């Protein structure tokens, strides 16, 4: 679950900067899948970065998975980040680590046993259909393959909150369908999932509650 109350966000100086989000309030219970809609520049990525603790709201109240983020200490935020998965528009894979090590990274940071890590990585990579590319480096992969590696890294530690920014934009239709099915399964198992997209076709094909932004303002909240 997460709750935003009157949240504003501006890049750079919070007073002079152009507001990417203005006075957004949301209350989303735990579990379930939601679309995050809006035209380009509406503030979708900005909202997701606040939810994934990669940006700090300039004003307002943010509570994520029961933790009041604005008052939390750095150590508490680090622990909270281990319960949040995030897929970025630009994938953010480490170019000098192979696919296996990229996907294993969150588990290694949680000091899991190497045997368990190997088991989990093989399972998830089979799911995204890249089990035979484990030794490749990210630059050697196609855009869609990189996106699937990024998705695998975000879900491997079964986060309680998963935010994904255009996770299907590099995928073909079959892959996109597979991915959305997996997200629906995870949502049924109790993960809160927010997926940003401006692809209307895919939203019509997979209807789900939606949050809609326009120029930084919340215009629709079907949650």
């Amino acid at each position, binding site marked *: 679950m997460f709750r935003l109350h009157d949240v504003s966000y501006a890049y750079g100086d919070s007073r002079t900067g152009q507001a990417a989000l203005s006075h957004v309030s949301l209350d989303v219970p735990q579990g379930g899948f939601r679309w995050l809609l809006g035209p380009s520049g509406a503030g979708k990525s900005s909202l997701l970065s606040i939810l994934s603790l990669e940006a700090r709201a300039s004003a307002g109240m943010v509570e994520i998975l029961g933790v009041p983020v604005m008052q939390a200490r*750095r150590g508490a935020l*680090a622990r909270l*980040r281990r319960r949040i998965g995030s897929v970025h528009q630009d994938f*953010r894979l480490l170019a000098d680590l192979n696919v296996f*090590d990229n996907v294993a*990274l*969150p588990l290694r940071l949680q000091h899991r046993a*190497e045997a368990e890590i190997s088991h989990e990585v093989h399972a998830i990579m089979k799911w995204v259909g890249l089990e035979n590319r484990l030794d490749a480096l990210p630059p050697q992969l196609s855009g869609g393959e990189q996106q699937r590696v990024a998705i695998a890294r975000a879900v491997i530690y079964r986060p309680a909150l998963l935010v994904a920014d255009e996770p299907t934009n590099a995928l073909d239709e079959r892959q996109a369908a597979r991915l959305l099915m997996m997200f629906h399964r995870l949502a049924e198992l109790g993960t809160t999932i927010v997926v940003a997209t401006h692809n209307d076709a895919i939203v019509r094909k997979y209807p789900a509650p939606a949050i809609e932004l326009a120029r930084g303002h919340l215009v629709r909240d079907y949650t």
Partner: protein
Amino acid sequence: MARQRYHDGLALRQALPGRFLPFLVGAMSFLAALALAGGIAAHSLSQRWTHGAGTVTTMQVPAPDDPASRPATPAPSSGPPPTRIAVVLDLLATTPGIVSAHRLTDAELRALLAPWIEQTGEQTLPLPAVIEVRALPGHNPAPDLLAQLQARVPGVVMEHDSVWSDRLAALAGSLQGCALLAVLIVMTVAVCVVMAATRAGLQTRRQAIALIHSLGATDGYISGRFASRVTLLALGGGLCGSVLALPMLLVMSQLAAPFSALGDPAATAPMDWHDPLSRIDALPHALLWVLLALPPAAGLTGWITTQMTVRAWLRRLP
């Protein structure tokens, strides 16, 4: 486990290459060793010289057998007034810090003055009494004593023979000050070098750091990873600095031996170049401890500096 430690994406071998930092830290340690050696040598030389020269004061009492002037409050018993020399010796006997006060006998005095007396041919020259006063090391009774004496025995002259040892002590003191200053500067430079290297390392790995930060790595984890790498490199550099400083110090102690250990045949014996380690005993123990302490000190400095640098840098991340 090795796989886990080196696959968290930080790639510290690239971020903090293994040559640059050890070389600079090694050079700093070497300089610190030399500076500390200089400080220690100056200290031990000043110890020897001030103790050897002792603090001897010579006192001249003109007209020793004349009666002394009365004290301000006259003693109740009014016998014959004491002589001037008696008053001086009395005062010396009751002054703390004085080991001995020896009045030179007439013969000693004449032997001392023989060259001048013979030149003038004068035998009946009225001679002052000369007293040799030895004080405890570090005590200089002159200033207080002189005031008291001159009140009772006008014309008393005191000559402090420790001018030379005082000057040597001052010289040694300023050498020690210079050594301390050099060590402080070297440490400051070392801290700056470690800071710059760490910042450069953070800059080259900033994407990886931002990523593992977003995956929940704590500041403590990241700074700990950087700090342990820097500590290892600084330790290695410090070790090299100490090891390289040792032969240099042995040669220097050989050159300085005649000054520091006069009359010690072992110390002034020519160096045996086939077995240079045999001379290690000749080094002051403090210096050996310094050489042993330098690598851990370099490591500790590296650890603290890196921890602080990385933690400050990480503050920019949300």
